[in-house]
């Protein structure tokens, strides 16, 4: 096991810089997930840790040793790829034992390590099969087995669940998390799926355009997003953003672009009449026939446990997660309340979070 230190790491392809000085300190045994949209540099960063991509500037250390100039095999890491990358002509057992065979381990040792790992992952009955005879989930488990057998200091996962169907993804998520709890090895995991990040990580690093937007525990990021990007990226359905101006009299409320008023429980620190963006998660919107602001229903999506309702308010689309079996239909108006204690405020220009004004607590 080892810690991983990424210090001011940059990556350029010619004149094009794609990773702009990233600093991340990953503790020994920590499960860190790098998350962000396509092209944010998360996979490049992981490949630089693995030694598959040259580091243009800065340093990567594993277990206190700078590894910039070491080959992948000298870094004592193991990697699981999105497309499994299993050797097609080898059996499951041969795939898993390949690294041990190359390092000159005895046949008995290889077989014992392969067997014990296969047992952990439930692969024992499949050991003699070729990768083409396995399902997607089984292949991914073999790829993980190949990584575990080596007993590396750090596991690197590059979008390992992206090729699996939704049900299998949920199952594998739990398996990877259980595996981390069992092995306690440091894991750096890359995904674009925020649910994977939220459910599995000890700490999440949100990247955009080669820059770290925010890092912290999943709930830290969920509850206190640093900016609109992080707020919108984490959580499902995504956070709603309502543009408006603070009430002129300083009371907790927002005047929307069409002049309608939205009552709030808090107001942000700032001057009155300032242009801001209100961020509210769909789950924090409620139906309130008394104080609610009327919104027009555009689409209703019952999921069984609740109903996702797409509404239009002051020319802006919002999603609200409301109770199931709503007695309304598309085209009708519905009074919605935004007076949740969990709302967020962002500066309209910089998109940065504006803290709530503690004095503005308003009891409705």
């Amino acid at each position, binding site marked *: 096991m080892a810690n991983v230190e990424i210090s001011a790491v940059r990556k350029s392809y010619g004149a094009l810089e794609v990773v702009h000085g990233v600093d991340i300190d990953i503790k020994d045994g920590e499960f860190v997930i790098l998350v962000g949209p396509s092209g944010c540099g998360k996979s490049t960063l992981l490949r630089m840790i693995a030694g*598959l991509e040259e580091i243009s500037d800065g340093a990567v250390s594993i277990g206190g040793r700078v590894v910039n100039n070491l080959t992948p095999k000298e870094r004592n890491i193991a990697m699981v790829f999105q497309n499994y990358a299993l050797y097609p002509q080898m059996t499951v057992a041969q795939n898993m034992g390949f*690294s041990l065979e190359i390092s000159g381990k005895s046949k008995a040792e290889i077989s014992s390590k392969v067997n014990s790992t296969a047992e952990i992952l439930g692969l024992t009955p499949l050991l003699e099969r070729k990768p083409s005879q396995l399902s997607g989930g089984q292949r991914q488990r073999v790829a993980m087995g190949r990584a575990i057998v080596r007993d590396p200091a750090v596991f690197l996962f590059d979008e390992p669940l992206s090729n699996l169907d939704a049900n299998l993804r949920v199952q594998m998520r739990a398996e990877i998390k259980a595996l981390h709890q069992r092995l306690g090895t440091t894991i750096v995991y890359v995904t674009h799926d925020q649910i994977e990040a939220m459910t599995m990580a000890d700490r999440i690093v949100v990247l955009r355009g080669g820059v770290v937007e925010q890092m912290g525990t999943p709930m830290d990021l969920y509850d206190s997003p640093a900016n609109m990007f992080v707020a919108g990226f984490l959580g499902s359905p995504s956070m709603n953003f309502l543009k408006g101006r603070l009430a002129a009299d300083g009371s907790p409320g927002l005047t929307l672009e069409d002049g309608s008023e939205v009552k709030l429980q808090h107001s942000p620190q700032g001057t009155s009449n300032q242009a801001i963006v209100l961020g509210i998660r769909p789950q924090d919107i409620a139906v309130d026939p008394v104080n609610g602001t009327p919104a027009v229903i555009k689409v209703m999506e019952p999921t069984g446990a609740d109903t996702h309702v797409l509404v239009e308010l002051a020319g802006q689309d919002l999603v609200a997660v409301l109770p199931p079996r709503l007695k309304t239909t598309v085209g009708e108006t519905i009074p919605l309340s935004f007076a949740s204690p969990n709302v967020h405020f962002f500066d309209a220009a910089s998109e940065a979070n504006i803290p709530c004004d503690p004095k503005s607590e308003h009891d409705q």
Partner: protein
Amino acid sequence: MTIVDAQTAPFSSLPKRRDPVLIGLWISLVIVAIIWLAPIVFITFTAMKSNPEVLNSAAFAPPEKIVWENFTKAWVKGNFNETFVNSTVITFIKVPLGLLISAMAAYALAQIQMGWNKFLLIFVLFGAMIPFQVMLAPLFTLVNSLSLIDTYPGVILPYLAFGVPYQVFILHGFFKAIPKELTEAALIDGASHVTIFRRIFLPVSLPVLAALLILDFVATWNEFAMALVLLQDKHMWTLPLGLMSFQGQFSDNYGQLNAAIVMTVLPATIVYLIFQRYFVSGLTSGAVKG
């Protein structure tokens, strides 16, 4: 028949409509096959006929009595003892060696980034663009200056030089299509490039290697022009040269001449039949993977 019966009638009882395009394709395939097979049938039948029977029977009529003597006589007269050995030595060294060199070069060009891979590939391909007939005279001078005329290396080395570029081209395309994660996974597993090439790329590429082996075997076995220039000594001749000489001397004995042709072509046919299963899958796998 009731309505119910009609609805539950199995599909197989419905009249089948054949696609006219498909029928047309089949007919043209059969015609092409006949055109290709006709000379083979003619040669094989003639090889088994006595000279009077050749002159008196129809060209495509099967032999009344098989004359095996044609083969034994042609073998002795045509000095096949020597030419067969020469062809075997040259082909069995050149073909595997050429494939190995091509595969290693293609791997390096496809998988190891050296910065000038594209230029190197174009440089290698340039060799495939020059017709070897143009090169015959300079080639003779070169081989002669190295004192390699009438030696095995004197003909194997030029064969390699002219065979490698197109094999590199085909294998490079195939290796490029192998996901790079496979190489990366092996690098992380601690494998060197030699190990990756030997343990992962070669087994994965078996179909395309088999296809190239067949093509190269047939081409080398039947090669004539370069051998004619580079092998002056009769004792160093390959089968096609021996066959030409035989034809010059015994062209009136059709039975024996065709027996000699059959014996010359047979090894290449056998190799083709052994590897044709891989050959077909090699061609398609290359096509699908781009």
